């Protein structure tokens, strides 16, 4: 151990002017150690710099570019939806403000902090915003994530003023879907809404970024691919607070979606909706109603409606209180009864039964059949409606007075010739099968077949798992297991009216671009299927339907005879009063077309638990036909039967 030499004796006064060097070997060694440490430290720093800058330079340069590059997305308006004339706007866009955030500019704690502030401002949970950010980041990290849509000024303005407290957050000019006529054609139009979690991946695969509002129901959903616009993009330079600092690198303007022109005829649609509402109200017992008016030669839907209805603006503008009310309403206002409810068709089915029976050669139009107040078939008594007695009648009269016992006898013939044949013919008319209308959510209904019955009951009630004569007999009058909707009945009656063509119904007429050029014709390109009904069969059926509407003993005479009497069009059609559960009110039906000899319109209406067809459904059909231009007459001519003559 080297003992240090005390220099200066511990005080400044002892310092010599030019001392000997105080450097001892130990100190010299320790200074050398310091030198080595210094070289080591600088060496480590230089090596680290080499790795960061020379080896990792490219990657970090990319990161630095990512920092300053912001992709601003400008959302495009959707296409406009109009009626068949193109003049009445049914869906359009109104300007609104979104709050968006850029996931790449908000990472980790910074994101938590900003999302926390934003959640407080918006009155939502931070977690919900974090989930949206994560999902956006995983898919389109450089695009803004829409955190809130259609933000009221009361929130947007304070955020804009304090935007520095929300780095990485931006207000985005956007659009919200607007349905200027409120509830008008609500079920047909549908509405737009956020992409659901379930559909998220699906939409992403189709080129969406996940932020868009998409069509959720009705034609908004069906024609989404045309209606949706293409967002615009701008790439700009920003600073750390997200403020634009000058340079702009690329610009792509937004492109509005294509316009959709529907086949809907506004007077018809309005009349149909007004009538459904009126019938439900007048009946006192009805839960809802639905109706379809279509052109029997083309399948174009002129009017389609379901009651009760809803305001699609509630969904488009996220009015949660109203949405909850709709969802909790026992009358199911959002259900489209015209295509998605399933009712027994009742006596409206008899026109199809008669056609099938004649096609199968088990019924002749001139053959008189005894129609007493009740008959006994297979050890069971089958009564007529209200125990009415009709005597010996032929087919047209059976339709006119809507005799049940007449058709029960026909039912027995179906069964005895070959069971299940009646079902096959019902399906030929399109009953129990989807019509393939261009609307989402259509339900097929049901035509029971022997095979269906076995499958349906073999586990539940094995003793019932057998096709019985009663099934065949019940079906002749549209009861039993058969279930359908107004759309299917309108298509079936259109086939009677047009000579046997089963049409594919259509609500979309054409797609046009913003300059008005037709991009795609929809209505003129729908398939039709001819089921081959010869005139000798059609003529007596049509005759029977005319009599039912306007004949002296016709079930709907009280409604349509005054129209004919005043010079209005001859209507042909059939009432239906479909039994539901015992003790429950019947479903009221009417399906008809006009003018009877040169049909321009078919209308089918069902009033759910609305009573008899003549009283509660036929007037709705009458008023709807009255509103349509080609068959126009004064709707006040439509009579209202006060006495129920028949079903």
């Amino acid at each position, binding site marked *: 151990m080297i003992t240090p030499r005390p220099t200066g004796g511990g005080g400044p006064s002892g310092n010599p002017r030019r001392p000997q060097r105080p450097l001892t070997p130990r100190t010299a060694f320790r200074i050398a150690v*310091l030198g080595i440490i*210094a070289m080591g430290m600088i060496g480590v720093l230089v090596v680290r710099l080499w790795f960061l800058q020379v080896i*990792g330079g490219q990657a970090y340069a990319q990161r630095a570019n990512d920092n300053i590059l912001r992709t601003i997305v400008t959302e495009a308006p959707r296409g406009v939806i109009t009626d068949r004339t193109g003049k009445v706007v049914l869906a359009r866009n109104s300007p609104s403000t979104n709050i968006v955030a850029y996931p790449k500019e908000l990472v980790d704690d910074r994101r938590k902090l900003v999302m926390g502030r934003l959640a407080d401002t918006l009155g939502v949970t931070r977690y919900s915003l974090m989930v949206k950010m994560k999902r956006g980041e995983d898919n389109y990290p450089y695009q803004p994530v829409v955190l809130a849509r259609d933000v009221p000024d009361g929130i947007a303005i304070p955020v804009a003023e304090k935007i520095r407290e929300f780095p990485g957050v931006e207000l985005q000019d956007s659009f919200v879907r607007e349905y200027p006529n409120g509830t008008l054609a609500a079920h047909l139009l549908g509405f737009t809404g956020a992409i659901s979690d379930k559909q998220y991946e699906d939409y992403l695969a189709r080129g969406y970024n996940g932020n868009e509002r998409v069509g959720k129901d009705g034609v908004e959903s069906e024609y989404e691919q045309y209606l949706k616009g293409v967002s615009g993009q701008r790439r700009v330079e920003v600073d750390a607070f997200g403020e634009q600092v000058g340079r702009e690198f690329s610009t792509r303007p937004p492109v509005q979606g294509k316009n959709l022109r529907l086949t809907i005829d506004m007077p018809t649609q309005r009349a149909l909706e007004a009538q459904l509402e009126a019938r439900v109200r007048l009946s006192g017992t009805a839960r809802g109603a639905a109706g379809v008016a279509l052109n029997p030669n083309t399948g174009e839907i002129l009017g389609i409606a379901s009651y009760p209805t809803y305001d699609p603006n509630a969904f488009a503008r996220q009015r949660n209180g109203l949405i909850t009310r709709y969802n909790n309403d026992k009358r199911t206002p959002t259900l489209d009864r015209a295509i998605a409810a399933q009712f027994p068709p009742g006596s409206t089915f008899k026109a199809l039964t008669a056609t099938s029976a004649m096609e199968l050669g088990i019924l002749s139009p001139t053959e008189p059949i005894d129609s007493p107040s009740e008959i006994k078939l297979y050890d069971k008594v089958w009564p007529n409606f209200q125990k009415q007695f009709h005597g010996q009648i032929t087919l047209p009269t059976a339709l006119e007075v809507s005799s049940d016992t007449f058709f029960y006898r026909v039912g027995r013939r179906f069964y005895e010739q070959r069971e299940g044949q009646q079902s096959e013919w019902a399906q030929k008319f399109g009953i129990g099968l989807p019509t393939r209308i261009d609307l989402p959510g259509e339900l097929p209904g049901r035509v029971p077949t022997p095979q269906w019955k076995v499958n349906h009951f073999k586990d539940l009630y094995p003793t019932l798992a057998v096709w019985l004569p009663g099934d065949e007999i019940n079906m002749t009058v549209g009861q039993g297991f058969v279930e359908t909707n107004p759309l299917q009945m309108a298509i079936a009656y259109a086939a009677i009216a047009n000579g046997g063509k089963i049409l594919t119904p259509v609500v979309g007429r054409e797609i046009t671009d913003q300059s008005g050029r037709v991009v795609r014709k929809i209505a003129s390109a729908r398939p039709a299927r001819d089921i081959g009904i010869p005139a000798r069969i059609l003529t007596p059926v049509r005759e029977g339907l005319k009599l039912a509407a306007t004949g002296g003993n016709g079930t709907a005479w009280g409604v349509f005879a005054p129209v004919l009497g005043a010079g209005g069009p001859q209507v042909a059609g059939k009432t239906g009063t479909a039994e539901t559960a015992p003790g429950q009110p019947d479903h009221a039906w009417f399906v008809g077309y006009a003018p009877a000899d040169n049909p321009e319109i078919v209308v089918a209406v069902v009033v759910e638990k609305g009573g008899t067809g003549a009283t509660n459904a036929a007037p709705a059909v009458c008023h709807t036909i009255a509103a349509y231009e080609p068959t126009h007459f004064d709707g006040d001519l439509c009579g209202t039967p006060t006495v129920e003559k028949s079903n």
Partner: protein
Amino acid sequence: MGERVRSALLSLDWILILAVGLLLVFSVHVIDAATVNDVPGSPNFFTDRQVLFTIGAVIGGIMLAAFDITRLQGMSWVLLGGLLGALAVVFVLGTTVKGANAWIDVGPFNLQPSEMGKVVMILVLSALAVERMAEITARRTTLFLVAVAAAPAAVVFLQPDLGTALVYGAILTAVLFLAGAPWTHFATAAAVVVGALVLVLGILPASGVHVLQDYQVERLTAFVNGDRDSGKAGYQLDQSKTAIGSGGAVGKGPEEATQTINDFLPEHHTDFIFAVIAEMYGFAGAAGVLLLFGIILWRILRLTARAATQFEQIVAGAIGAMIMFQLFQNVGMNVGIMPITGIPLPFVSYGGSHTVTNVAAIGILLSIHRRRAGL
């Protein structure tokens, strides 16, 4: 007269002066380029102030160079008392900047006594070590010097300014090392420090006692986490590495240094100025700055070996250690290999107190150089 001036000029270490001078001038340029957007409407706000600080610092440095530094050797307790007094005033009346209560407002400027304290601590500890040179290997001598350094360091730590407290620790270590304290003492001290770290960062927080503020723990541990770290410290570090890395070999130039001028890099004129240099001038510029520091340290250690008295020797060596520690800590934090503690880069970062202090240290070195022994 001419002869005296000539010999005075000849007695200066011009290489050291040149290296420090280059750094000071470069500093003004980088601060100017980095802060153009920082104060709306006044792009030269920080530049003008830094020029003033530098001029003041150089004047102070020249005065100290002309002063016989050994005359302070007997005033240890006065200096220490003065430092503790100033720190106490700050503690009571000070201004809080970025979480640390370390500044006293003086007119338009605010002074940071803990910065000046670095040089004071070097002088005080060196003088006390020299006084006790006869028993420098004794354990109580080491403990005594630790105790002297601990008082101001504790106050600074409580401000809380962990970085400066660590510099005090580095100064103490350097003084003990150059004075000749035995290796066993350093080994023991190292063991104590490691133990304390484990206790403060690991065991005590786990049992609910928080010695460090949350932000301090986060800064200290951010650099050991992965590439994309969490929290504000992690964000700073991430942006710093991005700035440095994106500079590449030769840099993007001041106009295109978007990390800096678009404000992604926080504290770009103070703690993270090295990242600014690296972004603007690339590996060439950053390594050039390190080369200048290498020259400065070489000149200081050379002088340490040549000092006229042991007091001056320890002072010179401790100044070298102080600059070395600050350099490594600051640049290490910029490049992500050291924890984030608010230590400025000597001669380069914006700031009055630390510029004055570090240039003062150079003045002291020049004073020692004038009186150096010949080889």
